[in-house]
């Protein structure tokens, strides 16, 4: 009997200790779709600027301002519609900001459906704040690793307050923007899980850039993070090259200039292979890019015959050169301007050429800036489109 009682006690306590105790009805939750994090700067227009300024000097680092974009069904006159709500809160830590927010909300702020995190560029330029923010994102059990991250060219708050023409719900808009971004490839991968893993390695990463105007938002280019600190921006073409080198490109559309003609083409099935060679003291990295493409069009009744292999060959060679140039220039930017091995060539040496890596490991940062990179491109134009 005692044994049964004991077992029963264990059963009850184990259920009571481990069970989910966070029952909140789905309609009592406010679904936060996007989160913006900025460095807080009281503006002069605010009346209580003197009061607000009190916050500033007490700490070695400035407070942060968190902007939440939430979707919440609100019943208005019998009909229920999904409202788009933007709320901001200032806090000394992004961890406490949500708690402060709760005191101003009738509902639970629910991060389980968070789609995007937008960081202000000021914040990313401060390594302390950036690391704290990344820690907050990584530690929250509800935030998915599949959310998208971007650095706003400006402040996240302004970006998230834009009402776009196409979709009034900015949370939904930004989340679908990132899905489209995966296809357009003018910015690096925005996946928070990937960014966190890369950051864990050496503190260098590319985070997509979010550019906004009065009515529009777009994703393109990237913020270059070196040692948890933003060093600058790279443009869309460099981002594209980065995507090709890191084998993340799904498809992209570009133009090729050939003898006054502009030939639009689409690249598909691009694969990049990295090989490293060591000849004496000279280390060389060979990138071979192979892929396929389509010529999308030319112009009406062209003099050139698109069905003529020699013409296609000519275009093909031109495109190969274009891509080669694109990649070499992008690598140069990282070698000379930022001096960070964002393509993880070092990782390649560590994995596949451990003996070489042992010698170069210590001076890798310097070696990388002088590293000889050869790019070989082999792109085959499979389809030439409809002709005549």
């Amino acid at each position, binding site marked *: 009997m005692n044994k049964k009682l004991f077992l029963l006690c264990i059963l009850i306590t184990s259920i009571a200790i481990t069970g989910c105790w966070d029952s909140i009805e*789905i309609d009592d*939750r406010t679904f936060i779709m996007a989160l913006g994090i900025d460095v807080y700067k009281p503006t002069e227009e605010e009346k209580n600027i003197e009061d607000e300024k009190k916050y500033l000097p007490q700490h070695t680092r400035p407070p942060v301002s968190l902007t939440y974009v939430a979707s919440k069904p609100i019943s208005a006159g019998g009909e229920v519609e999904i409202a788009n709500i933007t709320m901001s809160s200032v806090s000394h830590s992004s961890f406490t900001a949500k708690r402060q927010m709760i005191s101003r909300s009738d509902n639970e702020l629910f991060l389980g*459906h968070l789609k995007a995190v937008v960081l202000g560029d000021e914040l990313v330029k401060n390594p302390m704040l950036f690391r704290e923010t990344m820690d907050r994102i990584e530690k929250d059990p509800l935030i998915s690793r599949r959310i998208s991250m971007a650095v706003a060219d400006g402040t996240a708050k302004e970006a998230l307050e834009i009402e776009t023409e196409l979709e009034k719900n900015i949370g939904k808009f930004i989340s679908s923007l990132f899905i489209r971004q995966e296809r357009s490839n003018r910015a690096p991968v925005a996946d928070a899980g990937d960014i966190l893993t890369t950051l864990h390695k050496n503190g260098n990463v590319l985070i997509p850039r979010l550019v906004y105007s009065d009515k529009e938002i777009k994703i393109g280019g990237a913020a270059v993070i070196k040692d948890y600190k933003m060093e600058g921006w790279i443009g869309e073409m460099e981002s594209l090259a980065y995507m090709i080198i890191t084998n993340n490109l799904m498809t992209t559309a570009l133009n090729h200039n050939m003898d006054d003609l502009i030939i639009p083409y689409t690249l598909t099935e691009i694969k990049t292979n990295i090989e490293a060679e060591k000849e004496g003291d000279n280390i060389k990295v060979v990138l071979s890019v192979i892929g396929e493409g389509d010529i999308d069009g030319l112009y009406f009744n062209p003099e050139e015959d698109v069905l003529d292999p020699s013409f296609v060959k000519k275009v093909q060679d031109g495109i190969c050169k274009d891509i080669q140039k694109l990649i070499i220039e992008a690598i140069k930017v990282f070698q000379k301007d930022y001096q960070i091995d964002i393509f993880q060539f070092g990782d390649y040496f560590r994995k596949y050429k451990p003996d070489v890596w042992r010698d170069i490991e210590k001076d890798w940062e310097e070696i990388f800036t002088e590293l000889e990179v050869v790019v070989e491109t082999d792109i085959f134009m499979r389809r030439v489109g409809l002709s005549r």
Partner: protein
Amino acid sequence: MGLWKKLLGNKGEKKQEEGQAPHKSIEMNIKTIKEILKDCDDIVYREVEVGVENNVKAAIIYTDGMIDRNLLNNYILNNIMLTVRMTPPSPEDIKKQIASHLKDHSLAVSEMKEVETIDEGVTSILSGDTVLLIDNYDKLIIVASKGWQARGVSEPVTEIVIRGPRDGFVETFRVNTALIRRRVRDPKLKLKAQQVGVRSKTDMAIIYIEDIVNKKILKEVEERIKTIDMDAILDSGYIEQLIEDNWLSPFPQIQNTERPDVAVAALYEGRIVILVDNSPFALIAPTTLNAMLQSAEDYYERWNIATAVRLLRYLAAIISLLLPSLYVAITSFHPQMIPTKLALSIATTRQGVPFPAIVEALIMETTIELLREAGVRLPGPIGATIGIVGGLVIGQAAVEAGIVSPLMVIVVAVTAISSFAIPSYNVAIGFRLLRFGFIFAAGSFGLYGISLAKLLLLSHLCGLKSFGMPYLHPFVTFVEDIGDIKDTVIRAPMPSMNNRESIANKNERNRLDDKQEEEKYKEEEE
């Protein structure tokens, strides 16, 4: 098993009743019977005098309404009163043996026996047989004359199939045994009849095919039936509950069927069928959860269709068990698990609903159970009306009044439909009962609670046995019985189903005749 033995095992064997032997004098016998059947006004005593000189007294006793009057008049009374005088040998010679003469030469009835105690005679009278008493003869002659108003063989109500035989068991024991015998023309089919119930003395039979049946299981069934100690057995349900392994379980461990084809299919698989008089439901033991989720039609339809339907049925079982609790768990605890658009849409529909999801689920589930129960009680045409009024009107009104969300109505409706897709009604009720447990588990601990409840249920099911057969067979079986998988979620094509399940006797696993088997191997060799 242990529990079953503890509660039933110590009652011991029934005491054999020592009956009173008939007296030589017919008056004494009639008096005794009249005393036993005092105040039974449906018993008819007809005293006649037989013999050439009408000097031998005889009497017939029967229960009015339970006998075939035509047979009694034309072949019993007519014969003992008239024909007996015309038949040689001469009356003088046989005066002493008039009883045996009557028995052997005069009574033109097909079934007759003699009993040596009054009590047996009384039981026969009450079973619808006629007792013939003859003066100076110390045995009772029982003439089989059963014949009463009974329902004819008709289509089974609970197990309707689109393709398959339309006949179903009826309340008359003999008709049911005939329905089985018609499908098994094999002398190995054994039909062991006995009477159970101290007062009701209900006829029942254990039916099996001698060489296919597993002797161990047969012995177990026979032993358990021997321990039945009840005054009356009114339906096979009594027997089911008295001999099952674990009566605390929500799952029935004995299958019942109204269809002779299902019963016979079970016999050919090596199972045992128990028929009980006055009940159109035959019992099949041992059984498995898998067998409960099968329908007779699965074997009559082509295998690919049958497999698809079976998959659907397993899905229905899972839905009917889990869907409302999943809804409760996800909406109350884990909205991050569903797509954002769906989460927002659920939140939109739940806007203004005053109850938490678990209360909502319980209200709707209770309502649908009420509707179902009311639908069973109400006479046919009104039952359908209640279904429409309850299902459509109340559901619609509840949504419009904002008491429940429309999605909850869909969830409850899908669950109800799924539970009707389970072929065995008694398993479906088990699932219905467990569903409430799952809703509570989900409401208190979310998906974690559902997983705990699932573990509990699985551990119970894994331990459950039906007459020594694992209830989850063949899902929890040994490698040598892996062939049984052919008749589970999938239904293998007919030609590949040569082997019986491991329920059957080990030597008779192959369905083919020995000769056929040899031929088959020869063909393969060639």
